[in-house]
């Protein structure tokens, strides 16, 4: 009886530990994509064309989308996170950064 009980107890502890690990993995991934979006946005705002490579260096395996809305650039870096736990579906994390396109603002604003 005790052996069966201990087996169940160990199993449930394993699940809790796995959940805790997943939280860490998720947090780390979120920090990475946020950072990637930031460096990419920084470059895009100044008219650089290396936003993509910067983002993929900051968050390997991520994909980037730059949305232009007038002078506003929205940089979105997404990454699929697989958990170190069997049975947990992968989650997509997104990091977003907003900047003004400084070069187009210069053109539009004349004196700016």
């Amino acid at each position: 009886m005790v052996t069966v009980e201990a087996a169940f107890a160990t199993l449930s502890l394993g699940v809790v530990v796995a959940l805790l690990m997943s939280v860490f993995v998720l947090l780390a991934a979120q920090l990475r994509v946020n950072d990637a979006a930031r460096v990419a946005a920084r470059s895009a705002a100044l008219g650089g064309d290396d936003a993509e490579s910067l983002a993929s260096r900051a968050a390997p395996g991520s994909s980037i989308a730059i949305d232009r809305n007038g002078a506003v650039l929205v940089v979105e870096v997404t990454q699929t996170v697989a958990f170190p736990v069997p049975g947990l579906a992968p989650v997509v994390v997104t990091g977003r950064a907003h900047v003004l396109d400084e070069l187009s603002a210069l053109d539009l604003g004349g004196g700016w």
Partner: protein
Amino acid sequence: MTGPALNDMNNGNDDGYATVLAIALSLLLLTLGGAVLAVGDVVLARQQAGAAADLAALSAASRLLAGAGATEACASANTVAAMSGAELMGCTSDHEDVVLEVRRWPSESLRPMLRAAGSPDGAVHARARAGPPP
């Protein structure tokens, strides 16, 4: 005659021991998980405040570089900070340099904790400077 030994009261079996231990450990780990979530929330807010400050300063500095005045530069910083979910708290320019501060709110429940940790308003603050290289 002395009383029955402790084990005798339980007929000498250990049933339940592993479960009690597992529940105790689980509670401990879940508490740890809650702490990780709380710290994570603040860390993310701090990171996003930093990004907002950095990008806002960048915007203001490029306006200054393009000949705009301090007011216009700081207005641009304000726009960028607001787009990034942060509030511009201060913005000063010195020649072609801009120094500014933004704040960002973490989850409501964590603000008292931040207040206790020394942030007067319970928000996370970040400063950034931008300008042409010296």
